[in-house]
């Protein structure tokens, strides 16, 4: 049997149904998305060719997977919208050497850690202009009115 692959940098969806992590694929870190608790692997064809991957982050229901990818010499922040099968390439200010990111569970905001002019800094971005929110299921409303015929 071959050696078990290292698995790093885990991220859970808000509802706990999805786990993203990084595994070595042909010597390069690539994101692995799995349903929990079955461990079923979910293909991510739009991310092929953009390795190494870094810093995966999932939204509440796992609709969005944000991560850092490599395209040629550039490290990019992308968001895969699994509901629509689209890959959003985020246009962040030039000159940032991206280190990590964190997507808010509702998908409305993104935090990135980036080095600029030799200093690491965290910056926030509002994504609500182009990502639909990925929200948890609604809470049941308390104090429902009595059904007709029942005492209030």
């Amino acid at each position, binding site marked *: 049997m071959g050696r078990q692959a290292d*698995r790093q940098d*885990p*991220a*859970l969806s808000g509802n706990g149904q999805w786990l993203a992590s990084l595994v070595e694929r042909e010597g390069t870190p690539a994101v692995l998305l799995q349903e929990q608790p079955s461990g079923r692997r979910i293909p991510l064809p739009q991310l092929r060719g953009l390795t190494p991957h870094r810093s995966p982050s999932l939204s509440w229901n796992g609709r969005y997977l944000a991560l850092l990818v490599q*395209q040629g010499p550039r490290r990019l922040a992308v968001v895969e919208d699994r509901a629509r099968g*689209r890959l959003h390439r985020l246009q962040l200010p030039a000159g940032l050497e991206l280190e*990590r990111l964190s997507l808010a569970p509702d998908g409305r905001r993104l935090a*990135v850690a980036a080095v600029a002019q030799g200093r690491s800094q*965290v910056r926030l971005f509002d994504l609500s202009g182009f990502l639909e929110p990925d929200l948890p299921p609604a809470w049941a409303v308390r104090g429902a009115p009595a059904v007709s015929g029942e005492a209030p």
Partner: protein
Amino acid sequence: MAAGLAALLSGCLGPGPMPMQGLNRSLAEQGSQGEPSLSGRWLALIANRQGRDRVELVDVERQRPVPLPGLNRPDALPLSVSVSADGSRLAVVRQREGRTELVLHRRTVMSSEPIRMEPEGVPRRATLRADGREIAVEVSRGGLVQVDLIAVP
């Protein structure tokens, strides 16, 4: 193939991320930071203050830092932080007394509880589920790096 990839990417541009200028300016004035964790209205990060790394929590909507009594210790070096969506829990991997440990900090009681790795291993990074009920931990164990899922009450 490259052209196809470019088309795939460029076809999804549209409106881009908008920098949150006020908060970014405020963060930029406060020295170097890293390891961001964004959840709900909360941003947790590790900031360097006067040569020491410490965990900080920012209320993004009010654009102001929130105190974390009972979390930062002079003998501990935080490596990774993650916050729950309601801001009540933070999972922190830190070095202390020559060991690396994972702690769950509950803001409501201002205390940090160590979480043991079973079987024994060295935690390297932790991510809290948004509802705060589970932690995914990157653990170094016997020469292998693995991910453990730990339910927290």
